């Protein structure tokens, strides 16, 4: 067995038993990053020296007997989390020179738990995308291949670097952020588990903002247990984020073995969309039968406004983005392009610093918030958003969790689905509703497509009931017995 076969939970046991040291573990991972990252482009910035220094501290802490399950565990940090003294780009050229002078709360909590940071993971620019191709630092290659084919596939997005790093075993786990599916869809595309917690569960302080009413941090890892271990450290109330929830954080690991006996699992009729890939529908049916076999009660439910989710999302998220990204003006931080006057400097700075997708979304957001169109677009979208929340509230009066597919397809090729922005947006059709409602949702690898690519199922829970999400996800994971590995990985 190779050191790269260990999960976070497995590595924690080996570290605690002193069978392996954090320095050995991190040295192995640093080497794997060096070998595979030039090909995969999963990291924008690598921090091997910092990782090694943190590993030494971790070994001292383990020796002193006050380690946590994450002490000495090498992780990838999505390059959307501000890290003090380590360049943070949001995959945008406009932040190429930006070195934060402070640490995000989530990364600070992981650091406090003793986790080691291998580097800053690639993403879609400002987390806007579903394929990682909008990164200003080049696309990420999915370590998975279609059987018998060599075409490069996308890892999904926006947390595509995080996903590729964990799948290729050049990180033991990774942080992601999810605004409309950016943890769950890449997890599904790369055979990983990943959870978007309830909005408010993890602090947004120090996470570069995309759409503030939707953005939420979460873990991506090889299995459900590793996600629970990471979320235990990432979650919690923070005075620095006014939307952070003032609630105790349960031990998510304790929920893993609850089982699903007696749980009511909702199957929403509206997720059976016309033209959905039959493989995806078949996998969903399998998931339903697995849960039924383990004692869950399957209940047909309706989420009537599901089909409007993407339209709501593509008004609300750009509107918030246009406001959040107004700060990139070449004055206080980031890149600047000089102009003849102040306005010209702003316009040239933003034209040069932002990529095409980011510009599109800022412009859509600017338009839907502009005088004369606000009511027709933004206010209307907010009202339909409320109807979507009502759909979930009514469903959760009848069921304890909801099971759906995570994404409408397996990973697609680099360069496919590029014809127009709307085609790309359809990737998020199953993940966006939970984001708009603020409820927790997890993707679990559940099988392979006929082409040999991983497919995921999504488990959605009530607000702040990640425990049930973990319990159902663990049950799916157990039944699925997903053990397939990508061709490109550290061995």
């Amino acid at each position: 067995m190779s050191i790269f076969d260990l999960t976070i939970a497995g590595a924690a046991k080996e570290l605690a038993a002193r069978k392996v040291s954090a320095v050995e573990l991190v040295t192995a991972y640093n080497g794997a990053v060096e070998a595979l990252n030039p090909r995969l482009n999963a990291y924008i910035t690598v921090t091997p020296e910092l990782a090694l220094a943190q590993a030494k501290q971790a070994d001292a802490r383990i020796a002193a007997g006050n380690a946590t399950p994450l002490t000495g565990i090498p992780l990838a940090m999505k390059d959307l989390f501000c890290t003090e003294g380590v360049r943070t780009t949001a995959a945008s050229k406009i932040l190429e020179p930006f070195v934060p002078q402070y640490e995000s709360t989530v990364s600070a909590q992981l650091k406090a738990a003793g986790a080691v940071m291998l580097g800053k993971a690639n993403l879609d620019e400002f987390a806007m995308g579903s394929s990682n191709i909008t990164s200003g630092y080049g696309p990420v290659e999915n370590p998975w291949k279609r059987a018998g084919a060599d075409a490069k596939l996308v890892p999904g997005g926006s947390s595509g670097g995080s996903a590729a790093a964990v799948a290729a075993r050049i990180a033991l786990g990774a942080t992601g952020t999810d605004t409309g599916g950016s943890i769950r869809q890449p997890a599904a595309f790369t055979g990983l588990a990943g959870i978007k917690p309830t909005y408010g569960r993890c602090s947004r302080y120090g996470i570069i903002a995309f759409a503030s009413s939707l953005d939420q941090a979460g873990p991506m890892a090889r299995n459900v247990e590793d996600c629970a271990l990471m979320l235990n450290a990432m979650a919690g109330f923070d005075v620095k984020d006014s939307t952070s929830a003032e609630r105790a954080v349960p031990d998510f690991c304790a929920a893993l073995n609850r089982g699903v006996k007696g749980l009511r699992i909702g199957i929403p009729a509206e997720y059976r969309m016309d033209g959905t890939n039959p493989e995806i529908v078949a996998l969903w049916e399998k998931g339903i039968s697995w849960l039924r076999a383990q004692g869950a009660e399957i209940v047909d439910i309706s989420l009537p406004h599901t089909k409007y989710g993407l339209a709501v999302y593509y008004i609300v998220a750009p509107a918030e983005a246009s406001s959040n990204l107004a700060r990139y003006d070449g004055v206080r931080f980031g890149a600047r392009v000089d102009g003849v006057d102040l306005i010209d400097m702003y316009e040239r700075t933003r034209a040069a610093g932002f990529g095409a997708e980011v510009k599109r979304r800022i412009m859509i957001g600017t338009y839907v918030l502009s005088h004369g169109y606000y009511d027709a677009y933004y206010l209307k979208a907010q009202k339909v958003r409320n109807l979507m929340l009502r759909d979930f509230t009514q469903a959760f009066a009848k069921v304890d969790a909801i099971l759906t597919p995570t994404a409408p397809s397996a990973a697609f090729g680099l360069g496919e689905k590029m014809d127009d922005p709307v085609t790309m947006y359809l990737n998020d059709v199953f993940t966006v509703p939970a984001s708009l409602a603020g409820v927790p949702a997890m993707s679990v690898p559940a099988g392979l497509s006929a082409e040999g690519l991983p497919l995921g199922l999504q488990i959605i829970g009530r607000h702040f009931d990640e425990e049930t999400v973990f319990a159902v996800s663990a049950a799916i994971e157990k039944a699925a017995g997903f053990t397939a590995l990508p061709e490109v990985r550290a061995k």
Partner: protein
Amino acid sequence: MSLDAATVRRIAKLARIRVEDEEVQTLQGELNAILGYVEQLGEVNVDGVEPLSGGAQMALRQREDVVNDGGIAGKILANAPDRELNFFAVPKVVE
């Protein structure tokens, strides 16, 4: 509703993004495709429905209106593209 080229230029101006003449037509097509897609919200009846602004199921927290931070001018200016003493420097605004 379809955006014309003049509106695309006006939005770009409001968004403070310089758009070159040759980019306008492409942007116009892409923005119209997105706006065309979201048109479907027109069919939803929202009579009497309150707008939902956020995912948080709670009232926003408030804190005491007091100074609780400061004295970090160096950190705040550390990433400035241009600075003079403890100030951000910008092109001349007033002649």
